[in-house]
C-alpha cells in the first residue's frame, strides 16, 4: 500500500504545478478577457471591469488570490459568464459530459474488447476482416465528420433519434456512438495485438501441451495478459472522455463541459480555463493511478517490482 499512498501524495503538488503553469501561460497570451467588448464601452467601464475581477493588481497578487481560492476549492468567477462562478458552471455541465463520457467509455470497452478478441482468435478469417474494416472506419474518420454523418443518416433521413440537445435517453444515442466509435476502434486494435502476441508466448504452448481445450487456453490464459495494454490506455481515455468532447458537444448542441475548454480559451476566461485544466489534470492523475493498480492486479509480475 505504501507506493499507492506515495503516488496519491504526489498528485496535489503535480496539480499545483500544472495549475500554476496554466495560470501564467494564460495571462501571457496576447489579448485580455474584456478586449472584445471594449469597442462600445468606455475606458471607465473597462477599468471598472478589470478592478472588479482584480485584473488591475500585480500578477503576484492575483496569483496569491488564486491560491487562496484554490485552498477553499473555489475556482473563482467566470469572466465570460458573469454572475456565475467556475464552480457553478462545472456543477451544471459536468454531469452531462460525465454521463456521455461514461456511456462512450462503455461503448469503447464493450465493443472494442470483443471485436479485437474475435479478430485475434480468428486471425485472417472473416471476423478479422470485419473488425479491421471497423477499425479503419473508426480510426480514419475524424469525429467531426462522423458526427454530422450520423446526424444526417439517423437523425434527418431515418428520424430514429433526435438530432441534437440533451434530455431523454434517446438523445444520448448518437453522441455516444459518435464519441465511442473512435475509441472502440483504438481499443480493439490494442486487444487484437495483445491477444495475438500472448498466443505466441511459451506459457500458451505449455497450456496447450497439457491438453487444455482451445476455449480454456484463450479465456483462462490468454485474455488477462492481453488486456494489459488496454488497461494502461484506459487512464488517459477516461480523463479525456469524462471532461467532454468539444466537437461532439458542438455538433449535438450539448450543455457539457468540453465546449468550455475551447471557448474559455478564445474568450480569455482565465479562471474558467485554469479550472478546467485543474479538473482534467486531477482526473488524469487519479485514473492513471487507478490504471496502475489495475495493472498490478492483472499482472502479478509487476507487483514485486
Amino acid at each position: 500500500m505504501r507506493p499507492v499512498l506515495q503516488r496519491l501524495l504526489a498528485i496535489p503538488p503535480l496539480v499545483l504545478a500544472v495549475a500554476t503553469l496554466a495560470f501564467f501561460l494564460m495571462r501571457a497570451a496576447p489579448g485580455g478577457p474584456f478586449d472584445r467588448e471594449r469597442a462600445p464601452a468606455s475606458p471607465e467601464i473597462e477599468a471598472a471591469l478589470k478592478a472588479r475581477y482584480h485584473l488591475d493588481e500585480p500578477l503576484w497578487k492575483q496569483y496569491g488570490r488564486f491560491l487562496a481560492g484554490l485552498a477553499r476549492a473555489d475556482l473563482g468567477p467566470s469572466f465570460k459568464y458573469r454572475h456565475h462562478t467556475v464552480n457553478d458552471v462545472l456543477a451544471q455541465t459536468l454531469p452531462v459530459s460525465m454521463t456521455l463520457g461514461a456511456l462512450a467509455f462503455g461503448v469503447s470497452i464493450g465493443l472494442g474488447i470483443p471485436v479485437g478478441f474475435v479478430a485475434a482468435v480468428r486471425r485472417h478469417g472473416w471476423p478479422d476482416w470485419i473488425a479491421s474494416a471497423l477499425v479503419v472506419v473508426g480510426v480514419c474518420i475524424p469525429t467531426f465528420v462522423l458526427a454530422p454523418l450520423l446526424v444526417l443518416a439517423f437523425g434527418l433521413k431515418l428520424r430514429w433519434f433526435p438530432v441534437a440537445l440533451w434530455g431523454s435517453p434517446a438523445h444520448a444515442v448518437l453522441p455516444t456512438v459518435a464519441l465511442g466509435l473512435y475509441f472502440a476502434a483504438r481499443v480493439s486494435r490494442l486487444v487484437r495485438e495483445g491477444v495475438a502476441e500472448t498466443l505466441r508466448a511459451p506459457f500458451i504452448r505449455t497450456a496447450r501441451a497439457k491438453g487444455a481445450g482451445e476455449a480454456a487456453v484463450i479465456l483462462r490464459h490468454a485474455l488477462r495478459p492481453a488486456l494489459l495494454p488496454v488497461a494502461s490506455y484506459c487512464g488517459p481515455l477516461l480523463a479525456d472522455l469524462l471532461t467532454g468532447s468539444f466537437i461532439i458537444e458542438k455538433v449535438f448542441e450539448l450543455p457539457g463541459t468540453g465546449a468550455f475548454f475551447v471557448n474559455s480559451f478564445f474568450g480569455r476566461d482565465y479562471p474558467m480555463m485554469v479550472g478546467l485544466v485543474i479538473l482534467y489534470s486531477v482526473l488524469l492523475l487519479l485514473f492513471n493511478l487507478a490504471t496502475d493498480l489495475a495493472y498490478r492486479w492483472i499482472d502479478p509480475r509487476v507487483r514485486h517490482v
Partner: protein
Amino acid sequence: MASLFVLAFLVLAAVVGPWISGQQANAGEGEPFVPPGSGHWFGTDIHGRDLLARILAGTRISLLVGVVGAGVAVAIGVAWGMVAGYAGGKIDGAMMRFVDILYALPNIIFVMLAITMLEEHVLRWLGAHAAWLATGVRALMLFACLGAVSWLNMARVVRGQVLVLKESEFVVASRALGAGPVHILRRHVLPNILGIVIVYAALTVPAVILYESFLSFLGLGIRPPDASLGTLIEDGARQLNPLRVRWWLLLGPAGVLAVALLAFQWLGDGLRDAFEGRTE
C-alpha cells in the same frame, strides 16, 4: 511493403500533382458544385475550384505537417529521454517530472496557447528579417506545436530503454575504456533504440495529421485559401444537408486521408514486426 508503395504514390502525387493537373488549387474559374466528371475528376467546391487540385495541395500540406511534426516530436523526445535516462538520479527525476506536468496539461490547451502566443512574435520577427516566409507561418507554427505536444510518450519510451541499456555489458565496457557520455549515447545507445524510435515515429505521423485536422476544425489550423486534408473535410462536412447531397466534397478528401493514415499505420506495424522479429 504495399503500404510503402501507397505512401510513395501519395507523396509523388502530392509533390508533382499540382503541376500536372494544370488546375489552380486556390483560384476558382468553373461552376460551383460540379459533380465529378471528365472536366473535374473530383468535382468542384463551393467556389468552383477543382477539388482534385485542392486535395493534392491539401495532401502535400497534411503530409508535410505530419512528417515534420513527427520529426520534431522524435528529435525532442529522443534527446530528452536519452539525457534523462542516462543521467539518472536528480536530473532524471526533474526531467521526468516536467514531462509529467506537461502530460497532465490538456494538450489542446497547450497547442492553442502556443500557437497564439508565438504567432505574433514569429510574425513580427519574420516581418523584419524574412518577409517571404510570413505566409507559411501558420504551417511552421503547426509543425512546432504539434511536435511539441507529441514528444512526451517518445521521451518516456526512450528513457525506459536507456535505463536498461545503461547497465548492459557493452556500455559498461565502453565506460571502463574511458568513453564520455556523449560518445556512449551516440555510438552505443542510439543505434540500439533506433528500431523503437522509427516505429514510434511512423505511428506519430498519422496522429499528428489527425490532430492538425482537428485544429483546422477549430480554425487554428491551415488558413484559407490554403487547404489541408482536414480543412477540406471540414468544408465538405459543412455542406452536409438532407436537401442536396454533395457527397464528393466529403468523400474525396476523407478517402485520401483514410488511405494516408492507413498506410502509415501499416508501415508502423510492419516496421515493428520487423524490428521485434530481429530482437527475439
